[in-house]
């Protein structure tokens, strides 16, 4: 499952539209991301940030347009997707085993978000901020080159927001792609900001 390492990761959306719940949420949206890019998605609540991430992830079919993705993807949204009865460590190991990612990466993922002390606590006992960090650790442990992060800064304190910033930069410098949906301006240098509020225009940062 590490095919993504062979060819450089890329995302290409050409004039896509998305329908969700019978409503046209996105239209005429184009996006191109190459290895090393961090794309910041901005928009008000309900502007279609999550829809766009789900469209890229392949969870939602494109109603029109072209979608081409090279490389494995990892999605973190408001749901942790870790088994609540397992310890954080075991729950992360389940996905790591499924992804075939190296076991050392799990420890690195725990360290990246200061979760090592919580590794043997059942995931169900984590607080909401800790759950967000656990979901982000799952992303790091997946070894996927494309990260799709839906409001990753929500519920993070400033120390952990800084940890996420530095981990994002590290991911990009290693040739990864990250799409970060957020309602605040980017706190790091990004390749581009896509604002969904005004006709889906891509602005160079």
């Amino acid at each position, binding site marked *: 499952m590490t095919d993504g390492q062979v060819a450089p990761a890329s995302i290409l959306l050409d004039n896509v539209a998305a329908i969700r719940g019978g409503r046209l949420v996105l239209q005429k949206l184009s996006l191109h991301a190459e290895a090393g890019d961090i794309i910041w998605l901005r928009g008000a609540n309900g502007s279609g940030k999550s829809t766009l991430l789900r469209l890229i992830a392949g969870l939602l079919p494109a109603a029109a347009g072209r979608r081409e993705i090279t490389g494995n993807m990892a999605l973190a949204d408001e*749901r942790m997707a870790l088994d609540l009865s397992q310890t954080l460590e075991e729950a992360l190991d389940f996905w790591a085993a*499924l*992804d075939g990612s190296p076991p050392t990466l799990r420890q690195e993922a725990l360290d990246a978000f200061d979760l090592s002390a919580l590794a043997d606590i059942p995931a169900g006992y984590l607080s909401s901020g800790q759950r967000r960090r656990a979901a982000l650790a799952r992303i790091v442990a997946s070894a996927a080159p494309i990260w799709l992060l839906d409001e990753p800064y929500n519920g993070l304190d400033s120390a952990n927001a800084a940890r996420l910033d530095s981990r994002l930069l590290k991911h990009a410098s290693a040739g990864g792609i990250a799409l970060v949906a957020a309602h605040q301006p980017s706190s790091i240098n990004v390749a581009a900001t896509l604002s969904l509020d005004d006709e889906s225009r891509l602005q160079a940062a």
Partner: protein
Amino acid sequence: MKNLFLLLRREMRIAWTGGGLWLPIIFFLTVATLFPFVTGPDKPLLAKTGGGVLWIAALLASLLPIERLILPDREDGFLDQLAIRGWSDEWVALVKIAGHILAFGIPLLLASLIGSALIGLPEEKLGTLLLGLAFALPALAGLGVTIAALTAGLHGASALGGLLLVPLAIPLLIFGAGSLAENPGNAMQLLIATSLAMTAVSPFAAGAALKAGRE
């Protein structure tokens, strides 16, 4: 293949640790315990009707786990995570069905040994009961997972699940109970045929339901 095993092992773990394993079994044995109280100590009557009651109990017991088969994994984003990793909905459905057969079917077969003793089923019919249940369980599991995928997230999902599953499972019940009758005829063959057809269709039906439920 290794990944299928990982997912199947997770299904087993959830069934064992989530407590969902025992509820249907206890329900099944409760019916087998209560039925003789209602009929009184009438051995010939129990021998004649007991097998059918065990079949009804097995069918109703299979309704109990429906709510926890798909819904928790959908709410927690687990199914989405599998879809992103390229798992087709049909494979996920197949794993769910296989897991349900192992986690619900095998314990139910063991419980039916106790149940048939409680209800006083004649020994010569015990083999037929176990064989019939063993053949019907894959179909019951397939129906259960399909209906769980269809109703996940709806209000009153468990009641709706019962309404949907019971009519679909009637052929299994008729042929299964029929195989225990005085003159069973071809009931067992028909049971096997019905069960095979349902089992073969269910991963695709459940997969389609999983796909439709993703938005």
